[in-house]
């Protein structure tokens, strides 16, 4: 099972993508999509040295994505307002450092996508020595507020989603 279907979620996504692309649910396309969904992850497995990500709490993930969507819409209007109505010299653009506890590479990838999709914040890099995130904020008022928001609203759910099974694994091995 694990050998031929390394990531059921990825297979399902590929099947869905195939059906959406062809805009049909005919049996022939269902079959083709299923073949794609099974063959592609197996063939692509050598390209993933970390293995496929394991998502332990789908509900938390959906909630995170939904909240991020609201946040994206909200900050879209904030940034638009600044561009339209504020004098650009008054905009306080700053780099800030945020200490991160998240270590899972897939979790970090998701975090960077969410932060970069939100207008007004751009991920620059993770400082290798201290594992701090260097973040550029468009209009900074309160640095501590940003650190708290990112840590509680984004990082905490992502840790729950991606790092939970690893902890239990580690407990098993020790």
């Amino acid at each position, binding site marked *: 099972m694990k050998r031929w279907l390394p990531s059921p979620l990825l297979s399902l996504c590929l099947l869905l993508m195939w059906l959406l*692309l062809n805009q049909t649910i005919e049996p022939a396309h269902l079959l083709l999509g299923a073949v794609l969904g099974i063959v592609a992850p197996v063939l692509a497995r050598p390209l993933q040295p970390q293995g496929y990500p394991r998502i332990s709490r789908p509900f938390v993930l959906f909630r995170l994505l939904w909240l991020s969507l609201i946040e994206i819409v909200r900050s879209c209007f904030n940034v638009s307002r600044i561009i339209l109505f504020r004098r*650009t010299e008054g905009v306080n*653009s700053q780099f800030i450092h945020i200490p991160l506890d998240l270590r899972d590479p897939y979790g970090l990838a998701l975090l960077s996508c969410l932060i970069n*999709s939100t207008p007004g914040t751009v991920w*620059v890099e993770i400082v290798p020595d201290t594992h701090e995130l260097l973040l*550029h904020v468009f209009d900074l008022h309160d640095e501590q507020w940003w650190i708290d928001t990112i840590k509680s609203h984004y990082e905490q759910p992502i840790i729950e989603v991606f790092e939970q099974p690893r902890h239990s694994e580690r407990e098993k091995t020790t």
Partner: protein
Amino acid sequence: MNIAETLPTWAALPVAFLLVLGGLISLVGALGLLRLANFYQRIHGPAITVTLGAGCILIASMIYFTATQSRLVIHELLISVFVLMTAPVVAMMIMRAAVYRDLRKEHVADKEKTGTDRTATGA
């Protein structure tokens, strides 16, 4: 324009509203590129266009084609998924390139300074 004329009112209103809103948001994003002072600020302008601007136009497209073809047309979802997966990566790459460019500039400036100092002490 024949198909557009057969569009029922319940679909025409949200489609028109979303298209105008999406267009306005894209315009604001472009205006941001024009108005903002430096590169690090300008990178935030197109983020609005990519997320909300593209989102509005894609939702309008879904409603329009679902209403005119009387079947569910939602493959625009794929476009939004791929845009949301690729645009952040591009933003991060551009940002890092800019940071390294500025760091290198500082580095070269430092080198020139120490270089002139050394020649000054040597002389």
